[in-house]
């Protein structure tokens, strides 16, 4: 299993904060975003983290991972 999390405005927009999904071999972080939101890509102002570390959207996902998506932190911009 993998755990997905949304924070702040993204959680409000999509109406959920946490859910679990079955892991599929070859899945990347960006694939999870697209599958859960129906969008074709990750918007420029959405950041992602794998196991609580910022990561690029192309990062591979493994069983037991926690993947989070959130807007830029309020303190300012964060290049991903």
């Amino acid at each position, binding site marked *: 299993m993998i755990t997905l999390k949304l924070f702040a405005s993204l959680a409000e927009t999509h109406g959920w904060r946490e859910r679990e999904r079955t892991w599929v071999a070859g899945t990347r972080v960006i694939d999870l975003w697209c599958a859960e939101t129906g969008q074709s890509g990750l918007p420029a102002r959405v950041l992602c983290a794998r196991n609580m570390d910022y990561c690029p959207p192309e990062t591979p996902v493994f069983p037991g991972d926690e993947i989070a998506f*959130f*807007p830029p932190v309020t*303190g300012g911009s964060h290049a991903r």
Partner: protein
Amino acid sequence: MPVSVRAAPFEPYAEVASHQHAVFGASGQFGATAVFVGTMRDFNEGDSVQGMTLEHYPGMTERHLETICATASGQWPLLETLVIHRVGDISPGEAIVLVVVWSAHRQAAFEACREIMEALKSQAPFWKKERLATGTRWVTGNTAGYPASKS
């Protein structure tokens, strides 16, 4: 080098005094203490702000605060650091963040305190939602910390 994320209000100067006493006691090994206190404003972007809710990513936030302090401790000769950050519902005038650095000399204390604060603002996952008379809004940016030439 403790970091703390708290839902309850805290009194920053009492925290400085109690932590200093707990860590150093009566010893005189530190010659410089730099303190930054961030307080909630009652205005932003021309609007009166009645309060705000600060959301964080439990676990990731603490980890990043610890990394930021460890990085500063590797860059300057620090004796101790303390970071306390509020989350949840916050009212104007309440402390949001406290950063304290103890060092033997002032240059390291000043510079490390500044750097920890700026790194916190740009890296630690916190999100502000302001309460206005007309409703709520997520804050999407922040006032500049360093001059534009350095940021």
